[in-house]
């Protein structure tokens, strides 16, 4: 079976600092995997490399069997990426932001409406993003990442700044995504265990532990 993500001997160097050191990991379709570790462990760098946002200094990344950096455009159609920064524009309303991304991913209206409904964003659709609280903004950004129904979902610090109710809602949602691969980076072991089946502990850019929860 073709793996959802195959990271083979990947290293990333920022100046003199190694963010990732010869890291190899395979994640299959249907797996929910948490990347855990302290600040600077390399979780976000790994996420960015898998999302094709940052190219590795060495090594290969394959997404659904294709080289991630040779077929970037095609592969990005199948990836949904949420970061702690959020990718929404302050001046635009929630709906305008989501429509911008939805149209570029050629999303059908039904999928767009469903995901907005699911995360209870309907009443906030006409509000400019700059007026939203951090939690609502994050929810809108999660919708942005899921609007095109991606097969690989990357969630960098998903639970940071979200209330218990939203965290539970998201855990239920992602656990029901049977055929998708979900990668989460988190500081919260508690929520990571609720969401994921497998945990990979990183430290100083290397895998320290790889366990089933």
């Amino acid at each position, binding site marked *: 079976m073709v793996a959802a993500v195959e990271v083979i001997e990947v290293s990333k160097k920022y100046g003199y600092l190694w963010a990732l050191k010869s890291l190899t990991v395979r994640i299959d379709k249907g797996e929910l995997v948490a990347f855990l570790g302290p600040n600077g462990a390399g979780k976000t760098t790994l996420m960015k490399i898998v*999302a*094709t*946002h*940052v*190219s590795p200094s060495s090594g290969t990344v394959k997404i659904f069997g294709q080289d991630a*950096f040779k077929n970037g*455009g*095609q592969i*990005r*159609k199948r*990836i949904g*990426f949420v*970061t702690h*920064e*959020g*990718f*929404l*524009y*302050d*001046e*635009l309303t929630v709906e*305008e932001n989501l429509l*911008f*991304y939805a*149209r*570029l*991913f*050629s999303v059908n209206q039904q999928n767009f409406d469903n995901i907005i409904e699911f995360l209870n964003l309907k009443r906030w659709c006409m509000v*400019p993003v700059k007026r939203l609280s951090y939690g609502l903004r994050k929810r809108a950004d999660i919708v*942005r*990442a899921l609007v095109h129904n991606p097969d690989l979902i990357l969630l960098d610090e998903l639970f940071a700044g979200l209330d218990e109710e939203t965290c539970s809602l998201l855990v239920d949602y992602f656990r029901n995504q049977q055929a998708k691969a979900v990668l989460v980076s988190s500081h919260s072991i508690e929520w990571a265990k609720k969401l994921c089946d497998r945990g990979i502990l990183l430290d100083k850019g290397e895998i320290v532990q790889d366990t089933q929860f």
Partner: protein
Amino acid sequence: MGFFSTALRIAEKDLKAEFRRAYEVLSILIFSVSSILICSLAWGGALAGRAEVAAAALWIILFFASVLTFTTSFTREVDRGTFGGLKTLPCPPSAILLGKILYAIVLLFLVELVLLLSSMVFLNLSLSEVFLELLLVFFLGMVNLSVAGSFVSGLVMFSEGKTLLLSFLLFPICMPVLVPSVLATEKIVKGLSMVNIMPELRLLLAFLFSITAIGALTFKFILEEA
């Protein structure tokens, strides 16, 4: 979604966000009009017979207005963290660059119109008979500035001191645009025909093809290395 429709969507999104902020577009327009006013106060009616000074003044103002536009093109996306969103899009990097170029073209065209109209009023330049020719030169020069400026803005977006770097880089890179544009404007204001400005137009077109090719070929590396 196709290459051009992606670029159009990106430009549309940028323009919508820009006009919602309004104060930045207004500050660029106010800068242009107040510069013309200052020139008018300093030179009075003497400019009517000094085509070379009028041409230089108009292009200096347009160049500085374009610097103000490009400092907010890519750099704001990076500063606010929204640039990552553009990198998630399933499109070639050059579509993102084209979107930013189209956004700059619309903004600078607005500045250009205000600049030409206010120079007719405040500098007493009689441009009504040559307005279309002048608009053609300004449009071509402005498209060149937009392509070069957007490319440089992308080039420096991850650097420290990017605003300063942009101003420093933009001037030498835009010299092949500014020189023929000023010369062509001067000739038109003097009342010379289109045939006389063909060498300048050719230079502008040649620069446009060169900078577009450089941008299209190299922009993906700028995105990937960030």
